[in-house]
């Protein structure tokens, strides 16, 4: 995990049918920075995250991840570039997407063994260490259906970490969890931040965002409407739309 992970977006636009989901996003994320993307539903937060690691191809603009560059347009990006970016950034999904036919450890060693060619025994040792790190050392041989939501999400984080990324893209990763389970997952994220991983987090947990994020970005209508340190964005929002959003969620 060496080298600077700087992410830069300029003029990123994406349309789904008649709906302009992203409408010219400019954003720079410094190495090791934790950024929370917040805003009303349908504001383009998840789409932006998916554009960064190539799951969604955008129409215009460009995204730079370290030395790699994705360009919007008709042509899909070169597969090689997308693969490289995915090695830099792991991704965690709202609905976990663990592989149901594999155990927790099986989920974690799958990609290291078959993509990186790590020997199975070594991969398993590392998987156990990662499970220990997310507090699930005893669940290595459990299948996903035997795990609670919070446990599943922690396995998903361990699975992403097994590829040794320099950052994680987290797409509303606590939204599907019961309130009392959210803290186990958020706790893991705080640890990862301490370890220097860059985190780009789409979240509705404003308390967590204020506490842990270095920077808050508010997205609405496909545009960045507010951006800055948590104290500034939460306490003195500049735009009327951001003020209205905070009134609604904090009410």
């Amino acid at each position, binding site marked *: 995990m060496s080298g600077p992970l700087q992410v830069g977006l300029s003029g990123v636009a994406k349309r789904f049918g008649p709906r302009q989901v992203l409408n010219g996003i400019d954003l720079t994320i410094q190495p090791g920075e934790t950024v929370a993307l917040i805003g009303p539903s349908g504001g383009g937060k998840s789409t932006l995250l998916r554009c960064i690691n190539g799951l969604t191809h955008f129409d215009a603009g460009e995204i730079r991840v370290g030395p790699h560059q994705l360009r919007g347009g008709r042509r899909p990006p070169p597969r090689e570039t997308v693969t490289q970016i995915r090695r830099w950034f792991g991704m965690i999904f709202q609905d976990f997407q663990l592989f149901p*036919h594999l155990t927790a450890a099986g989920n974690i060693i799958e990609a290291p063994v078959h993509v990186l060619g790590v020997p199975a025994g070594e991969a398993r040792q590392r998987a156990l260490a990662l499970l220990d790190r997310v507090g699930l050392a005893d669940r290595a041989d459990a299948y*996903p259906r035997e795990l609670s939501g919070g446990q599943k999400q922690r396995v998903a984080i361990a699975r992403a970490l097994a590829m040794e990324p320099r950052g994680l893209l987290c797409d509303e990763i606590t939204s599907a969890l019961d309130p009392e389970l959210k803290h186990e997952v958020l706790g893991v994220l705080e640890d990862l931040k301490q370890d220097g991983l860059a985190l780009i987090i789409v979240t509705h947990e404003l308390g967590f965002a204020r506490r842990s994020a270095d920077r808050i970005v508010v997205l609405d209508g496909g545009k960045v409407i507010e951006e800055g340190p948590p104290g500034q964005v939460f306490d003195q929002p500049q735009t009327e739309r951001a003020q209205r959003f905070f009134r609604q969620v904090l009410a």
Partner: protein
Amino acid sequence: MALAVASLLAGPGSRAAVAADPLAPQASLRWAADAEGGAPYIFKDADQPDKNIGFEVDLAAALAEELGRGIDFIQYQYGSLVPGLQRRDFDFAMNGLEVTPDRARVVRFSRPYYVYTLQLVVRADDDRFQTLEQCRTLGGVVGTLEDTAAERLLDELQVAKSIYDNQTEPYRDLEFGRLDAVLLDLPIALYYAKPNAKLKFVGPQLARGYYAIAFRPEDEALAAQVDAALQRVADRGRLRQIYEHWGLWDDDQAALFARQTADQNHRHAEGRWAVRDYLPLLLRGAWVTIQLAVLSMLLAVTLGLPIALMRLSGWWPLQTFATVYVEFFRGIPVLLLLFFLYYGLPAIGVRYELGSWLNLSAYVAAVLGFGLNYAAYESEIYRAGIGSIAVGQWEAAASLGMSRGLTFRRIILPQAIRVILPPMTNDFIALFKDTSLVSVIALVELTKQYQILAKSSMRYLELGLATALLYLVMSVPLGHLARHLEKRWGKGI
């Protein structure tokens, strides 16, 4: 799989592929006829169901003696004898083939060995019809065999007809009132209708004609040898002996004697059939069924996956190809496909001089036909199974750096198997039963074996139950296996 196919090439249906020179004097001649309900020409002996009897069997034995070489019998669908001769599945056909101008154009007929007439038969209590003319004016429906002199006579006289592919069912249907009359060759009428008190002969004997042995035109030398042998068999009185034995000697007194013989034979046929007599034959048929079903399914499952992947590929040329494949093979009857592969391909090979590799053996044609047909269904099952896995699984794997191929192999397919397996097992079970269609290309599997035995013995019920039991023995364990695998592979989901 390749090995299995190779071993099948040596199977009974493959003789076409290894046709011996019929003129080599030491080699046995291969004689084709249809023993299915074929009395009194050739049919199964009630006492020894693996043995054929009939006046043509006796005649073949006499000819073999005269020629000084063996004659081996090959079971062949009556309606396919002429095309089978052309594709060199055997050396000659002797099975009550009437000499007609149409046939004489494509085969070399021997000198006639029997003078046949046609006999009209009606229900004993029905006095409406005495002649075919009356059948026509009163609108009676007359049953007969496909592609025979009787059928052509009915067409000529514009009598309503119902066509059968065997000679027992017309009389049965007549008895049950589904037909008003049956017009068939006298030997058939003597054997099947005369002993039946519910039926009666009416009118004169019609449309005198000849039965002769069919050879390929290019086998003139062999045909000439057999002509001479027939002459000698007749000269020695052996032919008369045989015909008298079967009640076919064609004069009034011989005919009186004939009826008794036929009566005896018929009663005889309904005689003692024991399980141990017919079970080995049914098992042999069942083994053919298993081979066909397993190999066809292997082919279908192997072929279906790439077709499903092409359809899911998102690249239009592949998608179009796969869609056309599926619609085509799903849309045409497999029966048609079998006919095309077995009889059509050799014709193409002859016309365009492509050699004999297109002369697929019956086994290969059957496996190919069912394999191609079922591959269309299996590919749709694959497609549904693959489509049932959430897009998020693809994305999760992609975000871990897994390629599409790796994702498919390691993540998608293992989950899809669980969805794919039950309908695929259903298809496999259905295939076991569908293989009964192969009788049209001269393969004897379980259902065909049942038909042959049942028509020879008249024991439709017992043999039917035994056959059904064999099918169940094959299909029920399959259902269990599927459920077991579903459980095992479904672990964790």
